[in-house]
């Protein structure tokens, strides 16, 4: 007994309308499919194809929002704020692009590395976890629903713990590293969800845009404030913000090489994006407590991280562990960019996110290639390999230079912008002069720890008994793609800069507000 009069006219959705969802759905479906097929041979191609599709989708999304504005996608026909909304604007399209690009580039590298480092019976489950991790990271960036962020955060975290523990096939310490990460990560996620609970109590909504609208009316509400504190600490753990970073060096050192590459370039970045989203879009810097938190907590902690982690990195004797410490320092730069709280500062933070992702993924790939050939990442084991593995070590040099921020590489641009952002604020607060000096000084520490690697690789005599040969092509191609992009984005700066700038402007504008209900019914 169909009553057509009561049924609203429906315009069929096209594939293009579904892009924000497909971004997450494609890798998500790949994971159970890999388990269901259970084939060792099909696992990798499936993973690779779905990551590549995710990359294409993210580029298409980027192209449609790079001029500003946003795309909203609603689940199950429930319009936001009741239903879950995916909201893509310049900021998260940018991060989605970073995550899916790294995810796709790493997989060919992983093919060789995983074969070497992980028991073959675990391969299909390994790739299933990998796809779940990618899904979680993409999901927490794409979604516009605060609780949905938590769900995806957990999906990515849980699969990450499994992936890190896979290093146990090579070194048993991976198990304790994964366990440490599990405990810390769970505490972080719990704090985050406690914060969300407080927000929900104060506002009665979970949609980020709606939250922003309602928080604005709350003024100095203590629940909203403590929610902020919980969210910052919870996400701080995931980002590896300075005193909350202890899980990171172990997890990165003992995880399988491919996993370290993937995580170092994506996991902390996605968490950092969520942190920015909450600071700028849900809460707004107009709130005095937000600004205070940035100036009193983020700024000094970021600077301490830049120095202390770089300092520790300089004394490491394991290449992989050194890079892990350097990651903590680099996160410091990004947090500093956020704490400077200007357009330039945010642009620098976002750019550094991307550039550091490229450089760190490249360097960890280099470590992976060295480990494949020598079985260890200790400086004593890899000394003098610059002559035996020239292409691998060449790529490491490019990555190292970008990490330091040598002109002509991508890292230079973001560090330069960061210094510029600090100098811009000198006029109102002269202590920012010290901040800019700190950036330069800590970069010198980066020179120290990167130089140590160069010295080990090129100036020391190789072990005469070493049988190391050049890394396989499956590893070299992804490495040189990343090395090429490190150089390309260092020389042709406009593309990334424009996008990062647009993203920064979007963040500083705060929330874009809720759609009105008519608009919400159709995909914009």
């Amino acid at each position: 007994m169909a009553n057509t009069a009561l049924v609203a006219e429906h315009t069929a959705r096209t594939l293009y309308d579904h892009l924000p969802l497909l971004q997450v759905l494609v890798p998500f479906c790949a994971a159970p499919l890999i388990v269901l097929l259970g084939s060792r041979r099909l696992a990798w191609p499936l993973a690779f194809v779905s990551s590549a599709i995710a990359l294409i989708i993210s580029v298409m999304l980027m192209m449609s929002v790079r001029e500003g504005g946003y795309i909203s996608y609603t689940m199950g026909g429930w319009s936001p704020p009741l239903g879950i909304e995916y909201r893509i604007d310049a900021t998260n399209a940018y991060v989605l692009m970073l995550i899916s690009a790294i995810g796709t580039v790493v997989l060919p590298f992983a093919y060789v590395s995983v074969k070497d480092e992980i028991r073959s019976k675990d391969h299909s489950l390994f790739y299933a976890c990998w796809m779940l991790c990618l899904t979680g990271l993409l999901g927490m960036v794409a979604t516009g629903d605060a609780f949905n962020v938590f769900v995806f955060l957990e999906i990515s975290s849980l699969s990450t713990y499994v992936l890190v523990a896979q290093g146990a096939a090579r070194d048993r310490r991976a198990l304790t590293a994964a366990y440490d990460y599990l405990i810390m990560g769970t505490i972080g996620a719990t704090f985050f969800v406690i914060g969300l609970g407080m927000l929900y109590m104060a506002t009665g909504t979970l949609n980020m845009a709606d939250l922003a609208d309602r928080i604005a009316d709350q003024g100095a509400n203590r629940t909203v404030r403590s929610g902020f504190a919980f969210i910052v600490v919870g996400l701080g753990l995931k980002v590896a913000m300075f005193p909350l970073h202890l899980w990171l060096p172990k997890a990165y050192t003992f995880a399988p090489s491919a996993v370290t590459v993937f995580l170092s370039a994506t996991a902390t970045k996605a968490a950092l994006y969520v942190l920015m989203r909450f600071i700028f879009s849900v809460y707004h810097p107009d709130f005095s407590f937000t600004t205070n938190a940035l100036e009193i907590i983020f700024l000094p902690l970021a600077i301490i991280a830049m120095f202390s982690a770089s300092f520790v990195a300089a004394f490491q004797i394991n290449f992989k562990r050194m890079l892990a410490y350097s990651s903590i320092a680099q996160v410091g730069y990004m947090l500093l960019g956020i704490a400077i709280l200007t357009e330039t500062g945010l642009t620098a933070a976002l750019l550094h996110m991307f550039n550091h992702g490229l450089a760190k993924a490249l360097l960890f790939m280099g470590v992976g290639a060295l480990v494949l050939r020598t079985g260890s990442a200790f400086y004593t084991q890899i000394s003098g390999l610059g002559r035996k593995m020239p292409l691998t070590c060449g790529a490491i040099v490019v990555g190292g230079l970008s990490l330091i921020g040598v002109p002509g590489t991508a890292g230079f641009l973001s560090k330069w912008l960061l210094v510029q952002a600090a100098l811009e604020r000198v006029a109102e607060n002269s202590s920012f002069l010290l901040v800019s000096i700190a950036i330069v000084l800590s970069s010198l520490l980066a020179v120290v720890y990167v130089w140590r690697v160069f010295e080990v690789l090129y100036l020391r005599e190789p072990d005469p008994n070493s049988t190391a040969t050049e890394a396989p092509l499956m590893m070299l191609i992804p490495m040189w793609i990343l090395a090429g992009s490190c150089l390309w984005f260092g020389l042709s700066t406009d593309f990334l800069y424009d996008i990062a700038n647009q993203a920064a402007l979007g963040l500083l504008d705060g929330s874009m507000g809720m759609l009105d209900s008519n608009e919400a019914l159709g995909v914009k």
Partner: protein
Amino acid sequence: MIFHHLILRVVTKLLVGTIILFALYVQFHGDFSPGGGFQAGVIMAVAFILYGIVFSLESVKKVFPEWLVHKILALGVLIYAGTGIATMLLGYDFLDYDAFAPLHPTHGQHWGLLAIEFGVGVTVTGVMVAIYYAFAGRPPSLTDEDW
């Protein structure tokens, strides 16, 4: 060993079928009475776990082998996601069940929910049994070199 616990074994044999039947009832009657995919999945898993506790892990693994557990675990997720993909292919939002009966959305919602709840039930059964297998099978599967 098989001669011990005669009463338990007889009762278990009687109960297993009933439990599975009840699980299916909770699964497919979930939209009219309390229940749904998660509860049904747990109840379904209980049937296997009970069988495993009374008749040994080996016998339950003969009935419900480990590889099958892993497959249905993934299958349920795919049923859920597949329902959403079906609605997308019909031109509606992801998981907008109106798509299944555009002229009578209530029916569409009904069918869509049955489908996803079935997916949930399948996965939960798999996960619960997998957890039981993992714990119950723990000592033999750890060799000395694993430590």
